């Protein structure tokens, strides 16, 4: 071990620029530029712009309160009875109150029907609709949409909870910007202190959602609104026929709205807290489902945005190109990088691996501390997560990358998302048949 450390230190001091670039080209060219330099630059611009345009935000807020449109909050789910009560209570605490709550029970086989009916009778929710037969999340959301009366539709997950001003904050962008079709909320991890797995996900969410979506939103390439917290213009959802069959329906609806020419915004102050998988096994299952949607929806269903046609828009093109490049192509490229290291720098492989961890850890710590300055709402002090940042190299660089690769391969070769039990087979088989 002492020898290994001596060799590592010697290597660091003698590596030189050329050699450093040769060994860490993947980090420098792709990840460093995109996730550190561009992100930092955009965040600074966003902060400065926000400061100079703060009056517009105030005006937008006033406009919202002046109009006070009716909002329809749709909560589809199966066996979510135990969460609905807490959710309804948290919604009662909202600063913005002109909303109706529609809960759709998608064929629950527990006490959800009784709980839902009681909450309806007690006035905690406005409408409780039960489907005796499970139809899938899309159909449940569409049913809620069918009976929604609001000008804006907010889609929530039953197992989430919301800041007091979350509803108000997610609506403000509709009044702040022109041509907004939908607004995504800021999803944070509620159970971050439950296990190593949840802590790592909390760091990941902070980077990829709380920060990453600010950047994507500012660049105009935001391509997903979390099902846990998203607001939509009702007229647009009516035009689109609402949600299509999942999994991955939240990304799909966002792309459909973009294709109509509307902008998608992220509201970092509209904070929602959710519980994430607390074991790596559960996390793997969740991510396999999520990651397949890149192939299913981006590469297959909505591939038309990549090619010139009457609906072609550069913003959509860049959004897709960035997504496919960084998640699909570079994912494959990473394996090339690994092969390159294994075969061309074989003798130094252990040293390079160690240095890799050091570089990523240092950059992660710097990034986390710097970017935390742009996060107005944190679920825990920055120092709480710093000890876990070295593990992010393994978690993000290896674990999630391998899971993602597996998901892509399953979807590319077997269209596995259509067999996912998350959606009932009666509708998945049609989605597969119709290639949707």
């Amino acid at each position, binding site marked *: 071990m002492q020898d290994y450390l001596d060799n590592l230190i010697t290597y660091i001091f003698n590596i030189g620029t050329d050699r450093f670039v040769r060994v860490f080209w993947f980090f420098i060219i792709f990840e460093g530029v995109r996730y550190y330099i561009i992100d930092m630059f955009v965040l600074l611009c966003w902060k400065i712009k926000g400061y100079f345009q703060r009056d517009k935000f105030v005006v937008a807020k006033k406009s919202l309160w002046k109009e006070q449109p009716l909002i329809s909050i749709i909560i589809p789910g199966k066996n979510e009875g135990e969460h609905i009560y807490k959710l309804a209570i948290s919604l009662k605490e909202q600063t913005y109150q002109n909303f109706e709550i529609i809960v759709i029970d998608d*064929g629950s086989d527990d006490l959800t029907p009784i709980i839902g*009916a009681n909450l*309806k*009778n007690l006035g905690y929710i406005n*409408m*409780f*609709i*039960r*489907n*005796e*037969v*499970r*139809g*899938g999340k*899309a*159909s*449940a959301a*569409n*049913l809620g949409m*069918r*009976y929604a009366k609001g000008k804006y539709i907010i889609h929530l997950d039953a197992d989430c909870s919301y800041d007091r001003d979350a509803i108000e904050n997610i609506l403000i962008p509709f009044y702040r910007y022109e041509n907004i079709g939908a607004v995504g909320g800021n999803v944070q991890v509620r159970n971050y202190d439950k296990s190593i797995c949840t802590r790592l996900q909390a760091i990941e969410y902070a980077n990829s959602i709380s920060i990453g979506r600010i950047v994507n939103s500012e660049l105009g390439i935001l391509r997903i609104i979390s099902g846990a917290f998203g607001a939509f213009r009702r007229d647009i959802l009516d035009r689109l*026929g*609402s*949600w*299509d*069959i999942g999994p991955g329906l939240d990304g799909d609806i966002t792309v459909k709205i973009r294709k109509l020419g509307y902008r998608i915004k992220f509201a970092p102050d509209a904070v929602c807290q959710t519980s994430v998988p607390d074991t790596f096994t559960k996390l793997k299952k969740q991510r396999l489902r999520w990651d397949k949607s890149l192939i299913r929806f981006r590469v297959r269903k909505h591939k038309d945005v990549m090619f010139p046609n009457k609906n072609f828009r550069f913003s959509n093109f860049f959004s897709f190109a960035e997504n496919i490049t960084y998640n699909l192509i570079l994912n494959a490229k990473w394996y090339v990088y690994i092969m390159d290291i294994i075969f061309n720098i074989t003798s130094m492989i252990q040293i390079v691996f160690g240095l890799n961890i050091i570089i990523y850890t240092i950059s992660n710590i710097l990034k986390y501390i710097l970017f935390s300055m742009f996060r107005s709402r944190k679920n825990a002090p920055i120092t709480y997560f710093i000890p876990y940042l070295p593990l992010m190299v393994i978690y993000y660089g290896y674990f999630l990358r391998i899971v993602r690769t597996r998901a892509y391969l399953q979807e590319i070769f077997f269209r596995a998302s259509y067999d996912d039990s998350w959606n009932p087979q*009666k*509708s998945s088989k*049609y*989605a597969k*048949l*119709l290639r*949707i």
Partner: protein
Amino acid sequence: MEKNRLFKKITPLLKIDSAVIEFEKLNFKKINVNKVWHIEQLIGYDAIILDASNLEFARYFINTIRSHHNTEYYLKPLFIYKPHPLLDIDLHNMYDGEYTSEKDLPEMKQIVWDIFLKTTEIEDVLSLSYEAQIIKRVLNYFYTRGINEIYCTKSTFSNYGYVYPMLNAILKEDGESKGLDLLEWAEQEGLITGKFHERIYLCNKCSGGFLSFREVCPSCHSSDSNTEDLVHHFPCAYIGPMSDFEDQYENELNCPKCNKNLRHIGVDYDKPSVIHHCNQCKADFQDLLVHAKCICCGVDTEVQFLIPKKVKKYEIMKKGKLAAISGILASESQKIIPNMIRFDTFKIMLQHEIYKVKYYKESALLLSGIHLNNLYELQQKIGRHAYDRLIHDLLTEVKNMLKSIDLVSIDNDDTLFITVLDADIQETNDILLKIKTLFTVLIYDNFKKFEVDIKVATIDITTDNNIEDYIKLLKKEL
């Protein structure tokens, strides 16, 4: 309901022809629907033969005499002739046989004599509670007829759909809903024993049993709603009511989202649920409320607020038959009124006073009783709860008028017993007069000028009899 009202309207104008059949020293008064008729005209006749060809008149007549408070009328033997084929089954126990021709008279004579004999056994005890007074009249009737069972029959003439012979007639239309409570009371007293027949639900306002059950909108409570299947189209995940899919021009189901034709249930679409649409307030909902609208008073209420009642068939117990003869005695369970000694304690204390009189040769004790004879009529109007409060308030006033050492209590028949210690007859009578005046004024002022009939009596207590005998004696005086 309508029929009942009709009887009331026609009664004062009825004209009857009457005639008398004399048979072996018995006078049978024939009643026909022809002449102006008063119930007092029946006095002196041994039995009645009623022309029952007119259904409404027959019903009215039978109910009128059976509901009369005087035994002379309500126990009078009654026969019918020319019965209307639709004469209600619930009246069958309310008359004593049919008269078709003179050849029936010997048998009728026997029935009349049997009733007479049993009627003479009955003691006319006045000092009784409301419940006891009503039940005693029912028991009297059944005892004199030798009937051991009190059957209920389904009837649209009853507010709650069932009729108990005699009981419903006595209580009349307004009070008949209390009949079930009275029977329950009688069962608790051990006078009758019941066997479950049916469970019914009554209006919580008027105790009516004629209820219209309707599914109503949970928002506006209107029953004007449509029900539709929810249809889920699998390929595009659209889900909505059937009307969303219906094509007005072609007899087809088309998906409003993807325009595809729905072909095969279970294959490309299904119906996971139903939804209701209120045509009044336009609300959409799945859980209809079930409301019951009372046909009698019009109150529309949720079914969980209806009053559940058991309808039973009753058998008269030995204690019930004895009650018919000698009156209903206070039950073992004592009436408990706050700040008032229980009646059994009162009796012990009184017994103690009697010993003192005997041992110390003191002046004789006086036992006074006060009974409000027609208070049960007030109870019918104001309900049991308010009645109990009234009794409590009256007793509080009485206690305030007496010394703390005086004995005062009330038995289950709501007869007030007072022993004013160290007082002669004059002083006692003065106090009783004050109490009587107070009761009269209080009830008159507070209950829409209700004139209460108060009986007051006082007896000397010597040392010869036991306490129960004194109480019995006093009740007879009342």
